[in-house]
């Protein structure tokens, strides 16, 4: 088997900012002393005048971005998900969300794949928090190609967007000519008839792996990539769930408030379907190499496979 190309989506974020920054002079990037980690350092090198390091003060950075956006800039705030969505939640809600300002939040180091830094830095709650804010778009891309497309779509979208990126290098899975990114449109990656796996972020790759293994057990799983958690693709969720009659969600996020909840909300109203939510249970993460943690918390291909198999039986 050929070596699969792996890139962390935070890296895609930095690269996309440079690419769009070349075309759009009103794009500015704000950081809170993490330019090296969020990969916006690449942008800083290329456009030092349009990169603003706010120091370790995320709440202030959020407000500065809001102010700049009222003057015609399109600011991308960059920090870890824990601080972007967690520390600055109320600033995002009141200074960006309520006035519906054109600010983009590039949140890196989301989920347990932060790894060794442990629970204090592993944000498994950000999708839930951001999803609650009226008018906020929430995107959780699955690989390099999708992440870059999402950054561009976020720039072009008029209004606040939360972009969720990871620290860990993940396989490139959307490397095909038909790939097209549209905010709010899920992507059927594999058709199936026995069960639907709605996956997001780094779990999309795991879901595809799981579907391959499930074939050997005679289970034909449909795999749907939900890169946009909000607005969620209601039509596709209902359509696929109605077709297969069984639904599993897979996300590197708490099972409370994230993709699993979003899918359950749609289905309980429109097409009640038996569901299993795979994700971080109601617990904090811990230190360890990212790959080991993903396996330990059952979010890799093997973990998803086991759970889906047990659920379908």
């Amino acid at each position, binding site marked *: 088997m050929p070596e699969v190309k792996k890139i962390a989506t935070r890296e895609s974020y930095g690269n996309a900012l440079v690419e769009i920054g070349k075309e759009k002079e009103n794009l500015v990037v704000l950081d809170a002393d993490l330019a090296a980690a969020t990969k916006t350092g690449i942008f800083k090198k290329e456009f030092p005048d349009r990169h603003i390091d706010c120091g370790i003060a995320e709440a202030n950075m959020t407000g*500065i971005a809001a102010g700049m956006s009222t003057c015609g800039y399109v600011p991308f705030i960059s920090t870890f998900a824990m601080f972007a969505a967690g520390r600055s939640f109320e600033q995002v809600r009141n200074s960006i969300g309520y006035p519906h300002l054109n600010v983009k939040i590039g949140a890196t180091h989301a989920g347990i794949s932060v790894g060794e830094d442990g629970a204090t830095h592993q944000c498994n709650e950000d999708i839930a928090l951001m999803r609650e804010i009226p008018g906020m778009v929430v995107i959780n891309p699955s690989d390099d190609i999708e992440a870059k497309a999402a950054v561009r779509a976020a720039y072009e979208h008029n209004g606040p967007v939360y972009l969720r990126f990871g620290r860990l290098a993940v396989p490139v899975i959307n490397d095909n000519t038909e790939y097209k990114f549209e905010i709010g449109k899920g992507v059927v990656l594999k058709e199936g008839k026995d069960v639907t796996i709605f996956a997001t972020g780094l779990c999309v790759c795991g879901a595809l792996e799981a579907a391959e293994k499930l074939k050997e057990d005679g289970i034909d799983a449909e795999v749907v990539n939900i890169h946009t958690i909000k607005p969620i693709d209601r039509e596709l969720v209902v359509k696929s769930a109605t077709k297969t009659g069984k639904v599993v969600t897979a996300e590197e996020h708490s099972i409370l408030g994230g993709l699993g909840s979003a899918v359950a909300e749609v289905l309980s109203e429109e097409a009640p379907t038996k569901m299993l939510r795979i994700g971080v249970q109601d617990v904090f993460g811990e230190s360890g190499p990212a790959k080991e943690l993903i396996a330990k918390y059952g979010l890799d291909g093997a973990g998803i496979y086991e759970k889906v198999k047990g659920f379908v039986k």
Partner: protein
Amino acid sequence: MTNLDLEKTAACIRKGIVTAVHSAASGHPGGSLSAADIFTYLYFEEMNIDPKNPKMEDRDRLVLSKGHVAPGLYATLAQRGYFPVEDLKSLRHTGSYLQGHPDMKHIPGVDMSSGSLGQGLSVAVGMALAGKMKKKDYRVYAITGDGEIQEGQIWEAAMFAGHRKLDNLVVIVDNNNLQIDGAITDVCSPYPIDKKFEAFGFHVINIDGNNFDEIRAAFKEAGQTKGMPTAIIAKTVKGKGISFMENQAGWHGKAPNDEEYAIAMEELKKAGEALCQK
């Protein structure tokens, strides 16, 4: 405008504040009245604005970081011609565009939605930074409360503004010495306010914030200050202009009843008449 004209205008704005809060049967008269003279000076003398074109690109901007004194801002904007004075009576009513706290999406002349204390100064800093980056001449004003500066984000913003030498930014601290729970010195003293802003790289001016001579001189000085942002620490009287509200923490967030409203309006009427005889 002469000081006399400014005083007359401020008296009208105070009537607007009391009327709006009375009609809403809730809201924040104390801090609106303490800042009324500063609002008046900013919108009638200092700021480059056009009520007919509220979104004018190169206008000066104001962020009311202490957003709960929205009645003060609204009464000023109405008096300046952004919307009818009559509309002040719809403050906080269901369906009214005059929300309890400033709402930039629906109120002409409001440059930023605010109300959650501590957030507005950062936004003003962002506007000032944008002005510098775009090489624009507009200036940015932020009004904070003296209780509000207990919020840590204020000092994050101050540190950044000082670091970036944003001399197009003026912070006005409405130092009326009272917050909801009592005197700021009893609750959690932010003093010395001037020395704190100085330490953060600001040019600091201490004034009587209910005296137009001093207000005028302070904004002139701020305009001439280069290489650093300015902080105007404006000593004011909470509830200024209404005898029974002055220096009373209890009038921070309480509306006058009908009887109190009548007394307040009578006092303001007399003050206005006295000014007309000057």
